[in-house]
């Protein structure tokens, strides 16, 4: 096996919760409880789980935007677990993130071309107009989009802008945290196709987070199912979706409303099937 692009070994992350009482010690949130995973070069890796299960925490730790309480994170062969910011330059260039809510992650006072060029500027590279036009084109926006502001775009277009910004430093790893959860179906289809095409064309390694396994199945080769800070099941997405083995995964799969099932008579009680009472 070649060295994985991302290796997470037994990572935990505890957050102190605000004190609720003067007498009791501050309670701790165990956001990650010993997570291990490996992502190979060029792989499309999905992470699925309910709200609060620790998906974003895990991504932030892989991107060195947050630190593990214990465990180890190795990206492209470099142990980043305790690396100081000044030695993370390689990561800041090679790994980029796209978030769920394109509106709150785009500065409303900046023109789109400056938003897209920002990661380059931050890294001390000159950002040519040529490169910005190239990026706008890559995500299917017209060149004049660069002159406008984020609020002048629809939700799907804003997500294209954040993808263009992520691609600016020519990353090798793209991490997407619920990138289509806030989008309409037809826009979702456009953005999923876009991510798929870019991953192929640019040979990216993709880590894609969603609470909906049917979306992960469409985009990813392999998936890790998270529940309460732990990975409960990992496998090829098609297999996990069709024959989930862990009870939690079964519950997750049966909760997804699908047209074929609904048209065959599935009810809301069927969606809840497998759910603990």
């Amino acid at each position, binding site marked *: 096996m070649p060295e994985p692009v991302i290796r997470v070994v037994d990572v935990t992350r505890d957050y102190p919760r605000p004190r609720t009482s003067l007498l009791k010690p501050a309670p701790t949130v165990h956001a990650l409880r010993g997570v291990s995973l490996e992502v190979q070069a060029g792989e499309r890796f999905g992470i699925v789980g*309910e*709200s609060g299960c620790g998906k974003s925490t895990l991504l932030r730790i892989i991107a060195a935007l947050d630190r593990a309480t214990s465990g180890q994170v190795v990206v492209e062969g470099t142990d980043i677990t305790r690396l100081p910011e000044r030695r993370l330059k390689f990561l800041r260039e090679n790994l980029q993130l796209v978030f769920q809510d394109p509106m709150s992650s785009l500065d409303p006072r900046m023109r789109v071309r400056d938003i897209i060029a920002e990661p380059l500027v931050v890294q001390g590279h000159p950002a040519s107009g040529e490169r910005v036009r190239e990026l706008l084109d890559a995500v299917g926006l017209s060149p004049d989009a660069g002159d406008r502001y984020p609020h002048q775009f629809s939700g799907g277009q804003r997500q294209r802008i954040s993808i263009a910004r992520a691609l600016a430093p020519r990353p090798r790893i793209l991490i997407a945290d619920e990138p289509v959860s806030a989008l*309409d*179906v*037809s826009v979702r289809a456009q953005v999923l*196709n876009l991510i798929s095409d870019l991953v192929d064309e640019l040979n990216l390694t993709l880590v894609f987070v969603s609470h909906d396994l049917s979306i992960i199945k469409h985009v990813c080769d392999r998936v890790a199912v998270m529940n309460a800070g732990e990975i409960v099941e990992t496998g090829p997405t098609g297999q996990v979706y069709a024959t989930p083995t862990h009870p939690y995964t079964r519950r997750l799969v049966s909760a997804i*409303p699908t047209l074929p099932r609904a048209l065959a008579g599935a009810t*809301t009680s069927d969606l809840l099937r497998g759910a603990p009472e």
Partner: protein
Amino acid sequence: MSDVLSVQGLSVTVRDKTLVQDVDLTVGPGERVGLIGESGSGKSLTALSVIGLLPEDVHAAGSVRLAGVSHELIGADERRMSRVRGLQLAMVFQEPMTALNPTMRVGDQVAEAMLIHRTVPGRRSARLAATELLDRVGLAGAMKTYPHQLSGGQRQRIVVALALANDPALLICDEPTTALDVTVQAMILDLIMQGVAARESALLFITHDLAVVATICQRVLVMYGGRVVEAGPVGEVFTRPRHRYTQGLLAASDLESADARLPTIPGNVPAAGQFPSGCVFRTRCAHATELCAEVPPWEGTPAHGFACHHPAPAMEPTHA
């Protein structure tokens, strides 16, 4: 039996812009009807027109009638509307905090909702009824909590409980689960289904998720650009769509049978007031011709039909 809700020729305008046009919509007693469409298609404005909660500068015209209410709802004054809301008519919004008072304990809010409309004789019985209601949504322990102490899904369960508190004849839900994950969504949807079934309430359910509509509704209306472009029984519309927009929407949402690439609808939904004249979909439609510059007439019956000059063939199922 006559309809619980009857909307005729509804138009919604803001200054010189028309946001919703010519919407006809009925919901029969105990019937569950879905209203689907993408962001900006006019779903919420349609619902807000029915409950009389449009923003100041936005105006509705046409007719909205509710069974058991002797007056027209469009143009009715706030005093009359507030009597209708929460009694015959209740609504659940996407964001539960819009319906909750952040400074009031959850149990008191549910009890008060019942007191206001005098569906219970007094404070004591209101509190008892509130406890019972919260128990039924699995939150018996939440009586004394404040909304901010609960998760988004728990808050939405409370809002559903509040909406059902007075056994409304019609429950309107506007994307009640869009911000929630699939497991919590399943719980809320089931709660709504059990709730309307037990009360024989009618349901108007707004969403952009076709699979959700197919799971809970019997009939569906498809909106685009402020107009209803297709309507009919869920099984018909979702297996044999006639309008080209419905067809595109179905294809784009089908993660099950699509391979690597999903079919998409070209272009973007235009901004409010920027939809083309004639057929609102023609600028994005592969089948559009000059004819489409004219508004397509409604084909079929009010309950089952479409408005398209070049519809998909009637018999051929496009969604196996």
